[in-house]
């Protein structure tokens, strides 16, 4: 087990390196003078000042050397400075990441809290009204853009009913109740697609397990339906669901880019969109790097959790 985890951890290194190379390459694909781009001052700089910038960011060195130096700095948390406000990108991202993590976690928990019971109920009542209703809602939810669900939620709960705030963010530490009230609509909009996919996976996994021999044995022993479902089947059916739940982290991060913009939540996603409009490339680069690394970490944890949950899987370790 430990050997397996260590081996997977070692495999992360080349993937992580490739990710940094791609992020670095992306920023070098931009046409134009990188020195002007990084400072963002446009034509206001003269050649002497540009030379200083080039030395500062090692732009006068060969590209592989630039990459190595950039990577070295990135590993210590130094992601350069924003060209829009000269703040350190690393510090800014740390601040914004906590907001995105808070929103993302909330969305993910809401999704799982709806999806798992709904999936179990649908599977147990296969082919009947609860199954039909849950499947219908899930199929519909997957086909709607999350941000459009958000717009409709704003229309109903913000504009018409005036129950919930539709813009802004209040830190949970400052005012828990108000913070949660601000979080409800964005979290639902962000989590709805994931909820639908988790529910469908839960339903199909449970149906598959329920058709296995050991369930028939439990039935033959005279066990009642719910003890079989909750005591025997659910645990075995959770494996593929855990995988989907892990993969949904990526979707939630990507979705945050749009949902944070829609609801005015000051997270990483909104920061990134604003940076695109301000041509603030260091911030775009930093945000992409942080988000991709977070998704990679989530996939890794999912993989490990998968082996912990299923003693049958040892992958030869």
């Amino acid at each position, binding site marked *: 087990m430990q050997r397996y985890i260590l081996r997977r951890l070692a495999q992360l290194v080349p993937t992580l390196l490739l*990710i940094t190379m791609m992020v670095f390459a992306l920023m070098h694909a*931009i046409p134009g003078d990188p020195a002007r781009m990084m400072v963002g001052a446009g034509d206001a700089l003269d050649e002497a000042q540009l030379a200083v910038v080039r030395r500062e960011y090692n732009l006068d060195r060969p590209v592989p050397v630039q990459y190595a130096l950039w990577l070295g700095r990135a590993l210590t948390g130094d992601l350069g400075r924003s060209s829009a406000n000269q703040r350190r990108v690393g510090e800014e991202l740390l601040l914004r990441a906590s907001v995105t993590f808070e929103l993302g976690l909330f969305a993910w928990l809401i999704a799982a809290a709806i999806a798992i019971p709904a999936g179990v109920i649908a599977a147990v009542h296969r082919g009947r009204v609860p199954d039909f209703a849950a499947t219908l809602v899930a*199929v519909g939810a997957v086909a709607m853009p999350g941000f459009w669900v958000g717009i409709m939620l704003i229309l109903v709960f913000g504009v018409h009913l005036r129950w919930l705030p539709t813009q802004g963010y209040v830190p949970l530490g400052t005012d828990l109740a108000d913070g949660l009230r601000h979080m409800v609509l964005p979290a639902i909009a962000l989590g709805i697609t994931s909820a639908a996919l988790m529910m469908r996976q839960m339903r199909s996994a449970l149906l598959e397990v329920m058709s296995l021999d050991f369930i028939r044995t439990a039935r033959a022993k005279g066990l009642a339906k719910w003890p079989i479902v909750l005591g025997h089947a659910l645990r075995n059916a959770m494996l593929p669901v855990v995988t989907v739940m892990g993969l949904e982290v990526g979707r939630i991060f990507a979705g945050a880019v749009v949902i944070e913009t829609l609801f005015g939540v000051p997270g990483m996603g909104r920061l990134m969109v604003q940076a695109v409009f301000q041509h603030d490339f260091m911030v775009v680069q930093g945000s992409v790097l942080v988000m991709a690394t977070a998704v990679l970490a989530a996939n890794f944890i999912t993989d490990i959790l998968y082996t912990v949950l299923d003693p049958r899987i040892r992958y030869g370790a």
Partner: protein
Amino acid sequence: MIALPTPDSVAGHLLRTPRAIFGIAVILLVLLGAIFAEHLIPYDTEDMDFDALLGGITAAHPFGTDQLGRDMLSRLILGARVAMEVSIGAVGLGVAIGVPLGLATAIIGGWFDDVTMRVMDAVVVFPSLLVAVALAAALGNSLGTVILAIGIANVPWLARIVRGQALGLRELDFVAAAEVAGTTRLRIMTHHILPNCLAPVIVQTTLGMGYAVLTEAALGFIGVGIQPPTPTWGNMLQAAFPLLEQHPLLSVVPGVAIFMLVLAFNLLGDALRDILDPRMRGIQ
């Protein structure tokens, strides 16, 4: 392993499946609208009707008008063109790169397989929306950038599917028979393995087209997608959002259009999966 039934039997199954019929009908409708947009639109998309600013549903404007008095139906039809261009372009790009790559890794194996799959692992970590936003920053926002970003995100999934299928097929007797008969590796790949990989690729591309429509809409909404004056369903929603309280119809109509088209792709994809992979029938 999924074997590909004959096209006739697939078509027969599809036409007996209500969700597939719904899917095909909606996709055809949108496709026809996209192709013949100029002949179908009742008004030029930039024509402003100053007597009908933010108009409701009327005989002259079945989906109302926007804040500049432009006809929503006409803009919706031209938006369908962008939706179709993006979904076909992005998925086409994904297939064009992903399928040969998946086949090559399975056939060549060794270090080439290891390196390619590690690169795919790294690409998967970037959600397509994130790539699209970053590419928009780097290359500017255009139809090509949007297609490129969504297309790249499709590559790893297709490559993995084809690789998995091809690895399984390679062990089968008919491939061994072809090898014994002296068929070249390239010919085995293109004539024996590729046709048998197609079923899951078809399913994945159908679902991928729906996903492309969703991603384009999200990009348009945050303003980094295809820019006005070209109407897209995403940038129509962006323009409508400040007027949500005043005129919600503007926000509802493009959303319903996106929903219908994505639903159509998803239902068709699910139906195809059921037909092509009988083991999954009734479970998914």
